[in-house]
């Protein structure tokens, strides 16, 4: 029974992702979208914490459309998986529920 967390705010200016990381546990997943994709940058405030979560088996995703729109495709951390809107839907099916951090 696991939760998909979506975060749509940049961690450079907003603490939504920080709270999300606190709550996130083993089988959960995190999807960065809209301005949340800025948090996928290697230099983002929570980059180390995200990578640590990833090493514990928590998948970190970023919405490809939002990443491309913001010219981040080649700047984001390697462990972050880029996904489409269709894959976003599939994630919400595979996880049991969604918490939106905004």
């Amino acid at each position, binding site marked *: 029974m696991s939760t998909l967390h979506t975060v749509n705010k940049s961690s450079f200016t907003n603490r939504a992702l920080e709270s999300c990381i606190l709550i996130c546990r083993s089988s959960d997943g995190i999807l960065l979208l*809209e301005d949340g994709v800025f948090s996928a940058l290697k230099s983002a405030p929570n980059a180390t914490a995200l990578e640590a979560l990833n090493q514990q088996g928590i998948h970190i995703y970023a919405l490809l459309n939002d990443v491309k729109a913001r010219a981040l495709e080649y700047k984001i951390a390697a462990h972050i998986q880029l996904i489409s809107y269709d894959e976003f839907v599939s994630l*919400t099916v595979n996880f049991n529920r969604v918490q939106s951090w905004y």
Partner: protein
Amino acid sequence: MIVPVMIFSINVQSPPSSQASYSAYQFCRALLRQGHNLHRVFFYQDGIYNATNLAAPPQDELDLYSEWQKLSKEHSVELVVCIAAALKRGLLNQEESIRYNKAGHNLAEGFTLGGLGQLIEAAAVSDRLITFGN
């Protein structure tokens, strides 16, 4: 892999000026493409602004207002606008406009006004309830 068909409801809490409304719309399109059911889109908080028929976006920008209407028409999706949130913000249908003695009404075709109970009912009957907030 067999993908189960699920019933979704979407809670849009962001105004059209926030990208979250666009994300909600794209999410709806994607889930319908995959053969899932979209039980209801509920517009709450500033999300109600998606339902005005008075917005006139520039020709070379996305008209999200019309896109919601097209979505509703093509897939008979219920677009329900929280009545309390709408009245507060100046979004009325004809009936409410008469009730409150206002100069006009501006709820776009395809949208209906409904109580918060409709959000809760959506939660009760749906496998997934996804919030798009700002």
